[in-house]
């Protein structure tokens, strides 16, 4: 699960990480009030930030024509007007796709005078199964580009999960980032807080880009997390009621939300052949084989190991609500589950949904003969395939016509 920037900053703040002063706003009036508070606290420059899960907000454009999902201003009146231009409008960035995302929440924060931008992240190192802290002097830019062009500018520190983040590791990274004196101490403390956020919140990733050296309102240099992104381990959400409450359904595809209600794993794609498959690996492989034979999959859909009739019916309804779908490919390897149960489910689902699109079914496994008989005697006009390749070619042929 992903959360908004303002929510990520709330979590980081809980673990002692410094973030710029600011408030969450849902209306222009709230934005004005938040800005007045910041100005009164001595902030000379403010920033109004659209809260959507996609990146590239600053360079994005609203469908209204207004440019920039992140804007600087100086007064409460300006903040009010910016909020009015952003709230209730759809922001399109390079990560949102052409549909964009509706902006319904803003973060109005102090925009400190930034002296230097750094990069910091904590993630899982899959090769060692250990947490990894990554930091770089190249902040505020795409870290993947830095990794490609100048990998020597990224420092990596593995954390022993039994010990946790150690003070010496904080000093080591601070030194590698060229921080001295009071800033080095601040950095070590901040790193410990960011690691703790990753660990305690069961995050999959915490990324602070940029982490900034700023001139504080007292004139002294400070290290603050100017932007923050947190991804969470879905498997661990059950033990974080507070984080569950941060889920924003408006950021998720309605079809994917509907699928999750039936324990179906559905991801919408751009093609025209819908797939209904049991098992994640086979579901991916089914998408691949469709492409191999010259068409494109409309979705990833894993109905799981024990698909019931209700699940199969729900799955059909979901894939059929995608208007781009021109044909359906059901690929089931029923190892333990009875193929006849699945066949019965397919027949019921087709009848219930009044399916008119071409349907290609490949069934294999337990009690497959009875399953094929059920399909053959159903009176439905469906095409059967003997192998995955045979069925894939047949379904691709139906859309090529």
């Amino acid at each position, binding site marked *: 699960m992903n959360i908004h920037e303002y929510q990520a900053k709330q979590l980081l703040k809980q673990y002692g990480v410094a973030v710029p002063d600011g408030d969450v706003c849902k209306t222009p009036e709230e934005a004005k009030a938040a800005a007045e508070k910041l100005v009164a606290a001595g902030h000379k420059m403010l920033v109004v930030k659209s809260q959507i899960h996609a990146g590239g907000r600053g360079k994005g454009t609203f469908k209204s024509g207004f440019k920039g999902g992140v804007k600087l201003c100086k007064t409460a009146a300006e903040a009010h007007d910016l909020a009015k231009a952003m709230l209730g409008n759809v922001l399109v960035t390079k990560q949102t796709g052409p549909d964009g995302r509706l902006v319904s929440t803003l973060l109005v924060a102090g925009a400190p005078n930034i002296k230097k931008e750094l990069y910091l992240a904590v993630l899982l190192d899959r090769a060692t199964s250990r947490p990894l802290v990554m930091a770089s002097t190249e902040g505020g830019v795409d870290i993947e580009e830095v990794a490609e062009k100048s990998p020597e500018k990224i420092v990596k520190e593995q954390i022993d999960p039994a010990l946790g983040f150690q003070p010496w590791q904080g000093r080591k990274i601070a030194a590698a980032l060229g921080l001295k004196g009071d800033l080095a101490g601040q950095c070590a403390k901040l790193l410990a807080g960011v690691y703790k956020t990753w660990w305690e919140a069961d995050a999959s990733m915490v990324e602070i880009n940029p982490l900034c050296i700023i001139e504080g309102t007292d004139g002294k240099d400070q290290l603050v997390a100017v932007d923050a992104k947190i991804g969470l381990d879905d498997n661990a959400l059950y033990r974080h009621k507070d984080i569950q409450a941060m889920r924003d359904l408006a950021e998720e595809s309605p079809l994917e939300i509907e699928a999750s209600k039936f324990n179906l794993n559905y991801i919408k794609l751009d093609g025209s052949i819908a797939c209904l498959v049991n098992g994640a690996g086979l579901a*991916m*492989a089914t998408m691949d084989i469709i492409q191999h034979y010259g068409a494109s999959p409309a979705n*990833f859909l894993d109905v799981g190991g024990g698909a019931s009739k209700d699940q199969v019916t729900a799955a059909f309804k979901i894939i059929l609500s995608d208007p781009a779908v021109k044909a359906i490919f059901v690929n089931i390897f029923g190892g333990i589950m009875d193929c006849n149960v699945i066949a019965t489910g397919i027949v019921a689902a087709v009848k219930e949904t009044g399916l008119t699109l071409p349907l290609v079914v490949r069934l294999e*496994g337990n009690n497959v003969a009875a399953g094929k008989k059920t399909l053959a005697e159903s009176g439905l006009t469906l095409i059967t395939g003997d192998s995955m390749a045979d069925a894939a070619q047949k379904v691709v042929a139906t859309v090529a016509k």
Partner: protein
Amino acid sequence: MAILVTPQTKLLVQGITGEFGARHARLSLDYGTQLVAGVTPGKGGQFFEHGGHKVPIFDTVADAVKQTGATASAVFVPPPFAADAILEGVDAGLDLVVAITEGIPVRDMVKAKQAMAGSKTRLIGPNCPGVVTPGTGKDSHGGCRIGIAPGYIHKQGNIGVVSRSGTLTYEAVWQLTSRGVGQSTCVGIGGDPVNGTSHLDVIQLFMADPETKGIIMIGEIGGSAEEEAAEWIAKHGTKPVAGFIAGATAPPGRRMGHAGAIVSGGKGTAEAKISAFKAAGIGVAATPSDMADTLLKMM
């Protein structure tokens, strides 16, 4: 010989009285697997009965091992308690713990993997279909089935199969069996980002096993375990290996069902894995329908 387990391996099931664990315990008994004990805290002293078998249930893994001599375990414990169950198996000195449970928090597995480092126990999974060493009876009856794979699709023979995915493993196994080609052992290592045994670990075991003459290695997007295995095969491989990588059409940044199947930051792409396979002389199946044929052509 097969790898990891033989038809003689004595198995216990942790979580044998849960619906999922019980169902697959029955299927393992039907397959002829030496299922000698069950563990469910609080139900010690009871029995798990099925088809004339009477399997004793113990409160702890240590007790079950002491009383029955079990050396391997299948973990069917729910996600919040699964990592703890794995470590209990490690403490009891099991040779093999196979964690079937899907949905274990990553942090729990990071801790468990750290805690079991240096122990004699090998962990397979979690979030995996398990391990099957087929038997010589009808429909491979009499083999060792640990986990949730359908036993009857197997056939005793000389091909090793290793994969992260369940149904894709069954697909490969079925392709082999329906061509009359049997398997030494089939291992599902699981779809999570932190797992006990990697592709490379299993490949090394297959290369060292005299009974295994060829290997099918199935990978998917995410991480770099397939590349590491390919690199080792290029240097030390002595047997033909064919493979398939699932997820070439998966959009970046999205988890494709398995928690570990994600392309992030341009890393873990199918393209990179396929080229690593090719560079290592691994036969790459053009489609998942060609996994068995690709290997058989190399042999």
